[in-house]
């Protein structure tokens, strides 16, 4: 059953409830299985990005090590190493004993450079190539197959994004917009891939927009994609969706090139 929740909370949970199926898209992305060679690095990136974006908020308790490792699809050892690295960066605090666990700490100053340093330029380009292929194919199919009822959530998200008051909120709605667009392709695989890629690169792309204050341009690109989908213009939707990803990647590569090793 579909819905459009996403964001801060796992949902309504009362004592005695069974374990919840996490429901919101941002959470799904944050805790979806990792597919990367440097698994410790990948866990660090995923959680650090989520903290930087405010998807995980200050003081929030992370799931238990076993649960988190299971959800991310990594071993407990890998997860512990990652948590240690995050503790060293001051982004996670672990308390022992009763009421203990790992808690999120949002550093006062967030530096995009610190996040970017973990990516080689070549990796960024490759992620962009992959993401553009997925986003472009999904947009083309969405344009071919969409009905007016598929467009309603997209326009609703764009309106909400225009009214959003914080960058974290805009970012959440941005993620939701792209997942709704992918789902309009009618392809479950493309949708899953969109969710996974967003977890890998979405936060960085977003931080790069923040850096250059480029949110108006991003909003215009979103509207243009939605219009092409509405007009059932598959080729234009594909070209615009690819451009949307590649423009952001170019920006990110420029920023990365300026970061000192």
């Amino acid at each position, binding site marked *: 059953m579909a819905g*459009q929740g996403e964001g801060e909370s796992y949902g309504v949970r009362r004592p005695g409830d069974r374990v*919840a199926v996490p429901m919101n898209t*941002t959470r799904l992305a944050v805790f979806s299985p990792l597919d990367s060679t440097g698994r410790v690095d990948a866990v660090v990136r995923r959680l650090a990005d989520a903290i930087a974006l405010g998807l995980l908020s200050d003081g929030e308790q992370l799931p238990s090590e076993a649960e988190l490792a299971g959800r991310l699809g990594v071993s407990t050892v890998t997860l512990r190493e990652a948590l240690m690295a995050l503790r060293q960066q001051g982004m996670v605090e672990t308390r022992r004993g009763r009421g203990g666990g790992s808690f999120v700490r949002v550093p006062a100053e967030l530096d995009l450079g610190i996040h970017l340093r973990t990516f080689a330029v070549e990796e960024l380009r490759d992620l962009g190539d992959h993401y553009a292929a997925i986003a472009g194919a999904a947009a083309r199919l969405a344009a071919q197959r969409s009905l007016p009822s598929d467009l309603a959530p997209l326009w609703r998200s764009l309106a909400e994004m225009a009214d959003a008051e914080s960058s974290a909120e805009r970012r959440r709605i941005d993620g939701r917009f792209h997942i709704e667009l992918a789902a309009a*392709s009618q*392809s479950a695989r493309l949708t899953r891939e969109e*969710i996974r890629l967003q977890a890998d690169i979405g936060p960085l792309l977003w931080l790069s927009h923040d850096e250059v204050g480029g949110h108006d341009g991003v909003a215009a690109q979103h509207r243009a994609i939605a219009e092409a989908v509405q007009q059932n213009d598959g080729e234009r939707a594909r070209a615009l969706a690819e451009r949307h990803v590649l423009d952001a990647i170019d920006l990110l590569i420029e920023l990365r090139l300026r970061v000192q090793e």
Partner: protein
Amino acid sequence: MIAKSDVERSGTTEQAATRVCRVAEEMFGVLNEVRELTAARARAVRDSGRRLATADLEGLRPLLFRRLGVVLISGIGFIAAPGLLADAPWYLEWWQESPSGRPSQLLPDLDPSSSAFYDYTHWDWYAGPHAGAERTICGPYVDYLCTDEYSLTLSVPVTLDGLFIGVAAADVFVRRFEAAVLPALREIPGPAFLTNSQGRVVVSNTARWVAGSVYRGTEGFNVKPLANVPLSLVSAPA
């Protein structure tokens, strides 16, 4: 003069329509059980002089658990009209299959002040019954929030003395529905496919019109709305 092939097509189309209706009726039959039990509980609580609460809906669980995983159903439950319950303005008593084999409850964020707020009244499976549709079939669509599966949601209104109090609904994976009806579609000579009320193809016997594509009224096809089920069987001569 009527060609032999036309007679054959008409016969097999009729049989396929009957088969699809039987499958759909079975699922709507389950929804009817959920609807009746919910209404009965709501009535008993009202007659005892208090307002329905989330705890009252736990009484639906034995029925929901029995029906989950049979007659194609992968998720099932009752979705309360906003404001119905005494202790929660928004609420779903919704259960789905999980890899562990035990039913798991879906617990979306139902706090309207939260940015993650899940307003289910937007969705066709809620809006349809709320607007008075006796039977709604929503989808096929990619259910990216619950299962990541390509799914259908079937729903019916739940009423108490004619007043709408919520929706009984069930999710069905398209691949399971396909397995149940494709054998009958395959018997039809020539292209044939099922569409939802908006023209989205659900199951098809031809690659030209696969699930997810949209039939926008191409000429040469005969569109046959099914009896009491919001689906159409679209077919053309071989």
